[in-house]
């Protein structure tokens, strides 16, 4: 058997959600059958990947409970095996996968969006924020870049409170859906969540898409005092940067849905 064929067969067996049966390409020994030897790798694969998802999505685990989480993880990983060299990326397709599974809509979907944004914020690049002098020299026809670690979320449930431990999983599931706007961002290496006003969210979303300020403001009907307040807060948080920090090979930083 050629190398490529052997590896394709073995990895397919390892990635089966159930225990693989025989493994004719593996030699048994005096203690273990070929299938039992393969099973060591099969067990390690599933345990490592499910543990990784559990570590990355503690809020989802809290919402679903261990049994449902395990079921979800197996179903998701069967459909979306890892396509990245790093386990950090394992959950990148989970928000989209969850959105296609109606049994998980509601707080669970919001929580996954928040937790994936948290992961991206954690290790995204940072740019030099604009200082007071830069802002004074700024003209509204220029594009304003945002911090690459900033993520913008439109949610229906206060899952940030569940993640922070100030609201129970049971309580959030009893809430009626509403609309809340949230940013995940980083300060001194720690990830923080900040609730946003609707207009603030919409403006940030447009700026994140690269709109010059004048165009971003079009149709927004924001009051001057609100704009002043928002810009003051963003400047203080270091969210405004003059140029894109993206470098070749760097992951694209994108806002979530408007």
């Amino acid at each position: 058997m050629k190398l490529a064929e052997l590896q394709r067969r073995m990895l397919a067996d390892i990635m089966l959600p159930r225990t693989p049966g025989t493994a004719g390409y593996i030699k048994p020994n005096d203690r273990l059958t070929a299938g039992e030897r393969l099973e060591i790798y099969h067990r390690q694969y599933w345990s490592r990947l499910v543990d990784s998802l559990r570590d990355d999505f503690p809020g989802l685990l809290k919402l679903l409970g261990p049994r449902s989480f395990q079921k979800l993880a197996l179903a998701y990983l069967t459909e979306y095996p890892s396509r990245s060299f790093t386990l950090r990326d394992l959950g990148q397709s989970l928000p989209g996968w969850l959105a296609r599974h109606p049994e998980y809509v509601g707080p669970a979907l919001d929580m996954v969006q928040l937790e994936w944004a948290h992961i991206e914020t954690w290790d995204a690049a940072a740019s030099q924020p604009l200082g007071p002098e830069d802002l004074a020299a700024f003209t509204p026809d220029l594009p304003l870049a945002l911090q690459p670690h900033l993520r913008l979320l439109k949610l229906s449930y206060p899952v940030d409170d569940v993640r922070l431990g100030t609201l129970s999983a049971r309580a959030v599931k009893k809430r009626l859906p509403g609309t809340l706007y949230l940013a995940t961002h980083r300060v001194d290496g720690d990830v923080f969540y900040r609730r946003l006003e609707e207009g603030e969210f919409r403006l940030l979303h447009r700026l994140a898409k690269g709109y010059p300020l004048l165009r971003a403001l079009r149709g927004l009907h924001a009051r001057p005092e609100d704009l002043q307040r928002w810009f003051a807060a963003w400047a203080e948080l270091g969210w405004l940067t003059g140029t894109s920090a993206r470098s070749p090979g760097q992951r694209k930083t994108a806002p979530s849905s408007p």
Partner: protein
Amino acid sequence: MPATRFNGFTDYGVGVGLRIPHYAHIFSHKPVVDWFEIISENFMVDGGRPLAILDQILERYRVVQHGVSMYFGSAEKLNRTHLRRLKTLVRRTGTPWLSDHLCWGSVDGSYSHDLLPMPYTFEAARLTARKIREAQDFLEVPIAVENVSSYAEFHVSEMTEWEFLNEVVERADCGILLDVNNIYVSSRNHSFDPHLYLDSVPANRVAQIHIAGHSTFEKYILDTHDHPVIDPVWALYEKAITRTGHTATLLEWDQHIPSFEEVHAEARKAEKYLPALVSA
């Protein structure tokens, strides 16, 4: 080995794997550690705390990179995006050599995140060696490949594991990260003589040695890195050092990680084998 082209002409002593639970201790107590081994993949990111921590470590300590996902033995091509990100990190750390495993783990872009055993065939040796050479050329740093613990053997194998290791490193002209715990684990799982393995390793190519603990089950041994090093593994280490001379040595402890002092003390047991050879 003492300074050679396989370890970037360095003479590192006993190091410890850099692990998150130890960060606070390291930054507050600033222990004297000869060098830290980092898992490359944990720092192949664009920013944030991982790189800030790494930069702080680099201000005070020497760092060597150890990877877990190059998969030199996978039949597919090297991942160029991965290599570019790795090279960025190599430039940041100034690692004198870089190690990864003699294994496979990905097929058609799907990753197992495991260190899967090679079939010991000439076809696999040729392909693996070619990929190591390509990576070494691209990264511009010496590469050392590590023997892995394994739990399965293949019908198609045409040679022993140590013959395969020799075949690969000679073809690739690369170094070896000799993991004596892995030799022990595999020797128990596959019933071979670990001393025969050690005697067959080309000592002049050994850039680094790994020591670690493991877990014993009824029918096999698992490489878990969650226990102190057992005496038979120390015996293999002593034998290895006798053959290779003073060699950079690192203790791996990845699960149920005890205090930094405990891990460091366990690692430093290796020093009792090293000085005798320096004076010899």
